[in-house]
């Protein structure tokens, strides 16, 4: 019988983290890149909840609290990113971050 244990959740999180990295590297659209970032944040959040369930001192909810903050900060981050992106879009008419590469030398 296969018991679901901590390791299974951690592997799911690791897969999501890897997928997030893959998305960021391979996508052109800035919004899609942001989606990759969300995947990475979710992977970490899932880790926290899983650890809280399996290996933290039983009385405390530190991991879950941390996850709440991750979600809040992810929302804030997405708002900032989209606001800046909209502003850039008004100037350049593109959301292809590959084309937003004037800052280099």
């Amino acid at each position, binding site marked *: 019988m296969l018991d679901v244990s901590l390791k299974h959740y951690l592997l799911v999180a690791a897969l999501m983290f890897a997928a997030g990295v893959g998305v*960021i590297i391979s996508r*052109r659209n800035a919004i899609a*890149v942001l989606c990759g970032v969300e995947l990475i944040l979710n992977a970490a959040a899932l880790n926290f909840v899983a650890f809280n369930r399996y290996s933290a001192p039983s009385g405390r909810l530190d991991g879950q609290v941390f996850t709440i903050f991750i979600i809040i900060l992810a929302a804030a981050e997405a708002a900032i990113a989209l606001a800046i992106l909209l502003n850039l879009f008004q100037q350049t008419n593109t959301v292809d971050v*590959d084309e937003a*590469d004037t*800052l*280099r030398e």
Partner: protein
Amino acid sequence: MQMPDTILIALLIVALPLAAWTIGFLHAAVRRRLPACQDWISTVAVGVSLALSLYLMFSQVLAGPAGMQAVTHSWRWFAIGSGDNAFVLNFDVLVDNLTVAMFCVVNIVAFLVHVYSRSYMHAEDRYPRFFLHLSLFTFSMLGLLVTSNLMMLFIFWELVGVCSYFLIGFFFLKKSAGDASKKAFVLNRIGDACFMAGIFMIGGLLAKQWPGESVLSFQRIWESIAMLGHGQGPWIGHESEVAIAGLLVFVGCMTKSAQFPLHVWLPDAMEGPTPVSALIHAATMVAAGVYMIVRMFPLMAGKGYVSGDFLDSPALWVIAFIGGITALFSGTIALVQTDLKKGLAYSTCSQLGYMVMAVGVGSISAGMFHLFTHAFFKACLFLGSGSVIHAVHSQEMKDMGGLRAKMPITYATFLIACLAIAGTPLFSGFLSKEAVLGQAAAFGAHHDSLLGWVPFTLAAVTAFLTAFYMFRLLFLTFHGKPGDRHKFEHAHESPAAMTMPLVVLAVLALIAGGIALPFGLDLGTGHWFQDRVNDQVLVQNTMGNTPAFADMQANMVHRHDPLPNANEAVSSFHHHAHTVHMPVLLMSLCAVLIGISAAWLLFVRRRSHDIVGGIPPLAKARVVMSNLYYVDWFYCNRVVPTVKDIADLAKAFDKSVIDALVNGVARFGTHIAWFAGRVDSLVVDGAVNGSGSSMLALGQFFRGLVNGKIQDYVKYTVWGLGLLMIWAVLARG
């Protein structure tokens, strides 16, 4: 501790030029321009400084058989940390014979250069600023002489370098001047970095012995050397580190004193105003490197210093060879220069090679002696060349010629200086050069191996070359027909403000050798100069009459008057020093005579402008010189082309390897190809280029990673973290 008057006077000597600089700087800060009379302020300051130096010289050094009683004083500057881990730096001051003598030399030359510049630079823009720089330079140089702490010495050393940077680039609107100053600065950084590394090694080793003390003072270093000689102290088990530290310190000397292969900045530094060339790049600053290794001599000598059996010290061998190679190498390049100042610059390199070699073969007296005499005659030569350039508005010798009649005073002083540098008897250069050659010969005889004779051989060949190329410069400039009729017509003798310093320097070039005559100034009391400036006196001066020195002295063999208990190696050396004396004397005489005559034949009789210019077989000349025909032919067609080729090759090596490294590595591919056919040093060359260009290529690579695309940034970041993980896991197992 009560401060002795001598210290006070010495500090005043150092502080006066600083005061002149400060006045100018504050004036500029408040009024947004320098004072119009900055030239007077600076000149008076250095004049008073000179007077005080001479006072010290006459009242202390010249009195008494062994010169003055050295005085030391030290102030706590700062301490980082506390207790045994503290890093402490004292401001250590030492005034002894050598300091006062150097004070006099620096102040004499500096004062004369100030006077000369008031006329020479008068029409230039930023005239007051020039004097501001001169004052700062004089202060730094004097400060360097008065410290007896390696760290303080390094600080002044850097200050001197910065002043040099300002002054070489004084005509900074000229691109070449800007480039030259940058080159000098960058190249000197190499030496400084090594010097600093050496200081750290020394400090690190000493800090274990004297925790929480100012360990970089000379006194501690000598004590450690003395202890090392007795098989104790902080350096036991670290002999190789001490040797490496010594060599690192010596690399500092190599850049400042323009030793091969780090000399290339000096000829380019001639872009600076001519008085600067005289003061900094001939007489004083470049000598700072020599002064430094003279002070550091026990460190270079290493373990055998106390027993006197130090001639096998690896550091000394390196120093002797580097010095000898520099002397010959630069001497050959000087043969083919067409620019008057560059010719003099290479001759400076060559003479500095002599001084360094003298230290390497174990005689700091000879090295310092040559430094003193050289300061006067080389300053005279440079100021003379400035006078000529002032008259014809050109540095190229092809525009000169026949100026003898137009500029009699300049000619006469230039001639005296040439005779001195060539080593003609009765002139100061003869005595000092003979001292160096004699020591080199004794070194050879002592080791009695092929390798041991190399420094002497190099020096002897250079002695001949020196006479030859110096007189070539003289003849091409002042004799023969005018190269440029128009310029010749307008040439005239310089004003008195410029000729008077020349005369003073010429007189000094004539008589300065007197201080080392056996009978000296105080008749009949032995070698006057050697008694006052030698390594034992210097060490004694620094350590004072401390128990440590008493112990050291008890075990120290008096090398200059071998005592019966001297060990075999030491007596052998002294034996040789006496036996080689006379042959060396004769040999150097011959070298001078042959050199001057050859120059005369070629440039005056054959009216050649180039050293290969004598090839066209003029009928008249052939008749006159028939007796010398084959020699002449051989000389002109075989020796001279060969020498010229060597010189060209050396110069090309110079230009392509070291210049290009400094100026940028872009043009290097072609040079490598050019080199491949000619020089065996391709491997070395390639390595040098490789490191330079690969640095830029790496920079290009890292820059290329930041390509503006955020996805790639993330990709490289993840890879970077991965590599860091691999490395960390591997490194920790």
